[in-house]
C-alpha cells in the first residue's frame, strides 16, 4: 500500500478508534534463512505498516528476536499477532504494549561542524549523555542511546548545526519486572 493511502487510513482510524495506538511486538523466531522475509511479507501482504524492525540473536543461538514497532487498533493487532503465531518458525509473540516495558534505540548522527559550532555540538551531546565517536575537520559523529523521545529531541537540537546523515537502529524493547507504573494503554485510558 502506498504510504499516503496508509496514512489516510491510519488517520481515519486514529480519529474514530480509541484503541488505535503504537504497538511494540516482540517475536521469537527460529534463527533460519527466510524467516524474516516471511514475517515482513505477512505485514506487507495485508497492508499492515512496519515503523521499525530490528533482528538479533538471543542467548540461545538457534533463536532470534525480532522487535517490530507498528500501529493498530485492538482488532488489527489481534489479527497481526495471530498471523505471526501461525508462521511455523515463529516460537513466541508478545505484544509488549500490553505490559510495562523499556524501549531503547541507538542513533548515529553525523553533523557538519563549522569551527564556531564545535563547542556547541559537544555541549548538546553532553546534555544528552551522547558520545562523539568520530570526528573529522568538518564533521562529528554522535552516538546516542535512549527512548524515542530522547533521540528525537537530540536530533531536533542538532538540526540547526546541519545534519549530514543519520542512521537509527530501530527500537528494541524488553518487559520490566514487577513495575507498578501504568501501562501505555492504561495511561491512554486515563488521559481520555
Amino acid at each position: 500500500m502506498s504510504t499516503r493511502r496508509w496514512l489516510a487510513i491510519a488517520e481515519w482510524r486514529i480519529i474514530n478508534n480509541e484503541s488505535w495506538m503504537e504497538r511494540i511486538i516482540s517475536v521469537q523466531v527460529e534463527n533460519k534463512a527466510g524467516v524474516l522475509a516471511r514475517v515482513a511479507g505477512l505485514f506487507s501482504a495485508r497492508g499492515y505498516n512496519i515503523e521499525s524492525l530490528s533482528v538479533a540473536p538471543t542467548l540461545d543461538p538457534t533463536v532470534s528476536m525480532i522487535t517490530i514497532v507498528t500501529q493498530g487498533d485492538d482488532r488489527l493487532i489481534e489479527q497481526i499477532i495471530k498471523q505471526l503465531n501461525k508462521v511455523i518458525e515463529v516460537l513466541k509473540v508478545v505484544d509488549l504494549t500490553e505490559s510495562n516495558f523499556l524501549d531503547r534505540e541507538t542513533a548515529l548522527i553525523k553533523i557538519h561542524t563549522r569551527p564556531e559550532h564545535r563547542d556547541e555540538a559537544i555541549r548538546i551531546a553532553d546534555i544528552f549523555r551522547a558520545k562523539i565517536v568520530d570526528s573529522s575537520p568538518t564533521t562529528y559523529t554522535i552516538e546516542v542511546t535512549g527512548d524515542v523521545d530522547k533521540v528525537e529531541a537530540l536530533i531536533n537540537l542538532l538540526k540547526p548545526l546541519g545534519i549530514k546523515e543519520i542512521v537509527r537502529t530501530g527500537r528494541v524493547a524488553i518487559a520490566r519486572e514487577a513495575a507498578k507504573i501504568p501501562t501505555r494503554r492504561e495511561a491512554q485510558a486515563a488521559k481520555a
Partner: protein
Amino acid sequence: MAEGYAKATGRAGVVLVTSGPGMTNIVTGLADAYMDSVPLVAFTGQVSTNLIGNDAFQEADNIGISRPCTKHNVLVKDVGELARTIKEAFYIATTGRPGPVLVDIPKDVSTDKADFKYPEKVNLRGYNPTYEGNKYQIKQAAEEIKKARRPVIYAGGGAVFSDAASEIRELAEIAQVPVTMTLMGLGSFPGTHALCMGMLGMHGGYWSNMAMHHADLLIAIGARFDDRVTGKLSDFCPEAKVVHVDIDPTSIKKNVHAHIPIVGDVKAVLKQLNVYLRAMDGNQSDLKELRRPWREQIEEWKRTHPLRYEQGDKVTKPQFVIDRVFEMTHHEGIVVTDVGQHQMWAAQYYKGSKPRTFITSGGLGTMGFGLPAALGAQKAYPDKLVLCITSEGSFQMNLQELATAAIYKLPVKVVLIHNNFHGMVRQWQDLFYEGRYASSQLGNVPDFVKLAEAYGLLGLSASKPAEVEPVIREGLKHRGPVLMDFHVDPFENCYPMIPAGGAHHEMLLEDPPELRNADRGALAKKKDKDKVEEGEGVLPA
C-alpha cells in the same frame, strides 16, 4: 490433479515439477490450495546450490515466489536434511488447518547420497495446532444452543476436512437446528435431510439467507465468513449471537465478531458439545416444540421462493442439464466443477450426502480447476463415478488434460454447459453494466465432440431438451472418459443472487423487467459487429 486427489481423499496430494518454468506453472495451483486449505506437498527442482542467485539456466526464486501462497516452504541445502524435511512437509500440510507446503531441492542435493534415516516423529517447536476445544467455552455454546429460538448451523470446509459429518448430523438432530453450508462445506450434511437448507451466500437459497438474516444464534463450524457468504458485513446476521469453531485462530473474529470463540478441530469440539447437549435436562420433544415456529418459517420461505427454472421444449436450460445429471446419478457421484454459473447451479442442485464428493475451487475461484481436479479424484477412486461439470470458458483453460484422461484411462464424465459466453461475467454485465458484453462472448470455440474424439474420448452432443437425457444415459454407460456437450440457453442467469455489497435479505430472485424485455440476442450481435469493425475476431454466424 493433486488438488483433486487431496480434496477427494483428505490425504496430501503430491506435485513434482522441474525448476524455473516448472515451478512458476504451479503458482496458481498453490494459491488455490492455500485459499481452500488443501493439503499438498510440492517438490520443485532448483539449480545447484553453488549456482543459486546467479541467474542460472531455468533458475527462479522458488521460495520467494511461493512464500505468500504456501503454508510453509523450505530450500533443502544438504541431502542429510532431506528426509526430515519431507517428513515435516507432510506433517505440516495435513495437520491443523491444512495447506500446501513446498520443498525446493537443488540439483546437487537430489543427486547427492546420504544414509536414509526417516524420522519417526516430527518435532517443530513453533507449530502445535490446537485440536481439543476449551471445555468452558463449549459448555457456554451448549447453553446458548439450548436457549436459542432461531438457531442456524453454518458449516464450512473445516467440517469436511475434519470428517465431522456424523457429529454435525448428531448436533443438528439432538438440538433440532437447521443446517446451511458454504460452497466448501457442501456434503458435510446430507442434502436430502429434513434439516438441510443447502448452500447460503451470494447464490445460496432464498430460505437459507433469510434464515441467516433472522437467526438469533449462528453456530459457525469450520467456516471463515467469506465475503461471498456474509454480503454486507454491517448487516450480517443482525440479531444473532455467534459461536465460532475453527482450528485456525486467525479465522476467528477476522470479519465477524464471535461471542463464543472456540479454537479447535470441528470433530473433537462437536463430540464434546454433543455430550453436553445430551446431558442437559429437557427432552427432545420440548426442543422440537420450541423450534417449531422457526422450522415452519423456513419451510414457508422455501415454499414461496424455491429454486426454479422453466424448461420449455425448444431451448435447453442449464439448470435442467445439471438437475438431470444429478437425478440420473442419484446424487452419488463425486462432483467436480469449474468456476462460473455452472458451478453455482451445480452447488444449488447438489444434494449429495457424503463429504468430499463436491469438489470445487472456492476461495481463489480458479477457472480451469475442473478437469485436472476431476482426474485427480478419479485416480484416487478409479471405481467411482466422477462428474466434471464445466463450461467452455473454464474448460478451455486446461483442456490439454484430456490427454491425461486418455493416457491413464481415467473414465471421467465431462458435462459441458455450453452457453457461448463467460456466463458469470455476462450475468454481471447484464445486471450491473447495462449489457455491455465486453469480451465475455466466446466466439470461435472448437467443435467439442471432434475435440474429444481427437484425444481418444467419446464425444456426445445435445442441442435440444429432448436429447439431454439420452445423451446423459449414453455418456454414463460408456466405460471410458466421455465429453458431453450440452448446448444451452446463453442468457440464463443464476438466482437467487445477493448483489456485491448487499445484505442477506436483499436478494435478486429473477431477471429484472428491463432485462427480461431486452433483446439480448441483438445486443450480442451488435457486439460482434463492433468486434469485426475493431478487427478483434468474429463469432460464427
